């Protein structure tokens, strides 16, 4: 089945220790997104790639970076996680001209 896969599902890191979350897709979509969702809040877009073009939201902290080495994979790097970065991180894909975005199951990040 075509899908969006996120690994790991749960990630524990230490305060200030860099961490990378990964997302892969078999849908061959040209747009990939990273969202942050804190408890009981709306998913908040961090950035997205249209093919290799990177688009950062204005209020995304510099602490968050992303890489998309190819169509299938996209990574979220948090350079120095703080306690406030503990959240669910959702990856989504979409096709320009398509109807909707397709979400992965998310990675829940815990910062100790």
């Amino acid at each position: 089945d075509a899908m969006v896969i996120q690994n790991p599902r749960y990630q524990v890191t230490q305060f200030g220790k860099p961490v990378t979350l990964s997302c892969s897709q078999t849908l061959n979509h040209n747009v990939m997104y990273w969202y942050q969702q804190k408890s009981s809040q709306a998913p908040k877009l961090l950035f997205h790639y249209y093919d290799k073009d990177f688009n950062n939201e204005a209020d995304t902290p510099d602490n968050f970076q992303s890489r998309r080495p190819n169509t299938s994979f996209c990574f979220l790097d948090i350079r120095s996680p703080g306690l406030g970065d503990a959240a669910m991180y959702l990856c989504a894909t979409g096709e320009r001209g398509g109807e909707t975005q397709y979400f992965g199951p998310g990675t829940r990040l815990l910062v100790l």
Partner: protein
Amino acid sequence: DQQVKQNSPSLSVQEGRISILNCDYTNSMFDYFLWYKKYPAEGPTFLISISSIKDKNEDGRFTVFLNKSAKHLSLHIVPSQPGDSAVYFCAASVGSNAGNMLTFGGGTRLMVKP
């Protein structure tokens, strides 16, 4: 500034009855609206959408109504089933292109009691 709001954090409904989930938006540029459903430990899944050129879209038990003048949309589920228990997010975008950004509401947790 929340551009998309779901003012009811939770809703409890008896099985077989109608569930009505509401969503309000402030940005008049939004012209495409979606509802997503989210189970615990899973990502949101697309449920139904509506373009601003319509005021109603129906898919099986799910109907979305759009009132542009009131900047309000609602999702009706009839009849409600226990498997519908989940968090429902409404989202809005400018244009129906999947490359366009979605702005989400905070979600409403629906509980359907047997």
